[in-house]
């Protein structure tokens, strides 16, 4: 997923390599894309996701692993990201 820096147009790239350049406003109709386009929010959420990925790998073989810490302000967005990522 591309996250460009403050230009009126954004590029959306699919998983099979197709790119689509659309205006930012159009893309922000989708709340999920809008959040992903937010540099602050997107970065933090992505960072958490990466953390989770490592956390998962680390405890791959273990049992009864304590849950990862999730700050309350991120929990909803993290939920949405996890749902989106099927994680």
């Amino acid at each position: 997923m591309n996250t460009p820096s403050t230009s009126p147009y954004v590029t959306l790239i699919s998983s099979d390599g197709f790119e689509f350049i659309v205006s930012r406003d159009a893309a922000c109709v989708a709340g999920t894309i809008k959040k992903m386009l937010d540099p602050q929010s997107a970065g933090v959420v992505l960072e958490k996701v990466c953390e989770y990925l490592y956390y998962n790998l680390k405890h791959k073989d273990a049992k009864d692993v304590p849950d990862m810490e999730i700050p309350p302000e991120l929990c909803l967005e993290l939920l949405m990201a996890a749902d989106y990522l099927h994680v």
Partner: protein
Amino acid sequence: MPARSLNKMATQACIKNIGSILDVGEAPYELVRPLLVKLQNPEQLRQIELNSRQICELDGEVWLQFIKRDVPNWDKKPHEPRNPNNWHKIYRKLCAESKRELEDDGAALKAEMDRIKNEQAKNTIHRVELNIVKVPEGMVSHGRTIKPARKPDLHDRVMQVPPNPNERVKRGLDGEGDRRRSTRTAAPPPTKGKLKLKQFRKEAKAIGHFSHQQQNRGQPGVWKAQDMRVKPVSVNQNIVTAPRCLIDEHRKPASPRPIDPSIKPPTVFAPRKRRIEHDATSSPVTSINEERENRLRAFTNPSSVKKSAPASNLPKSTPIPDRSNTHTSASTSAAAASLDQLFDEDIPMSSIENSTTLTIPKPPIATPIISPPETSARDSPASGYRIPRPNTSSPSNGGVRRTRPMKSKAPVDIFMPHPKRQRLV
């Protein structure tokens, strides 16, 4: 994977912080459904609906959950909206209805309680001012209480004659006459019938009081404080005599005191005519006396000592009390002479030292035989006991009967250096 999915972990984190969630954004209802069912505040749900419109249509089940919780008898009322978007309206309506019903029930209960309280209040006892109520006879109203017209004191009690049943009618009339004369009572003069009834009641009380007193304590003549608290007495009788009961009690013969059977009166023995016939079966008293005689003789006349020489002709008067009398003045030779004369009639008179005292022919008969030895405790064998005498006068000790015998001191015989206690059985 042993670790939980991010989805689950994120959901858990959201539930933990559910109080602060007011917007789920574009998240689909299915995603946030586990979150919404955990909501406790319907107002919060409404906010989420407003912020995330996609929730409105599907959150009916959450509203139903609220209705079930907050509205009693929800299933008896129409609780499903035609438009699923209007679940919140249904909820509000039903809540208002239930609240109204609760208030109505509360008001009804309160009314019922007030009614019961009022009914109970009617049955309680209230104070009544005595101005309205008629004061009984012989009593005077003192504001909130009533008291007898005049407080009787001890003087009244002594002066009052307890009513005699035989004189009831007569007294009634006299009482009326007195009442007219006296001005002390504040009550109006009662009728004849009431007066008689009052007199009768007083008699009963007085008789009962006095008899009760005697039964319980048996101490006539002794007044206690509770006797001074007098029942209300009519003040109209100005009779000046002692109470009849006391008079009767004073006059009646004194009842003989019950004698304690364990107390035996001292045995008094009649004088023997011939003391020479003294033998082994004689009583110990005489032997003691003889011993004493001998010793006395030994003191006075050491030359002539005779043992067991009883006088042949003794005067009828017993030597015991006389000797006791003379023993007290035994220091004098005259006494010794008289003593010798008493007991040693066989002995010639020449043995007596002082012949001049022979002029005392006979010893003074101090006391008769039967009289109790009251002077010397030494001589009486059972000296600790007193012979009970009939009560010829008022008791000297206030009517207290001695229930136990007096403790007796050991009889001390001055003629015997080491007294042997020989008690008469």
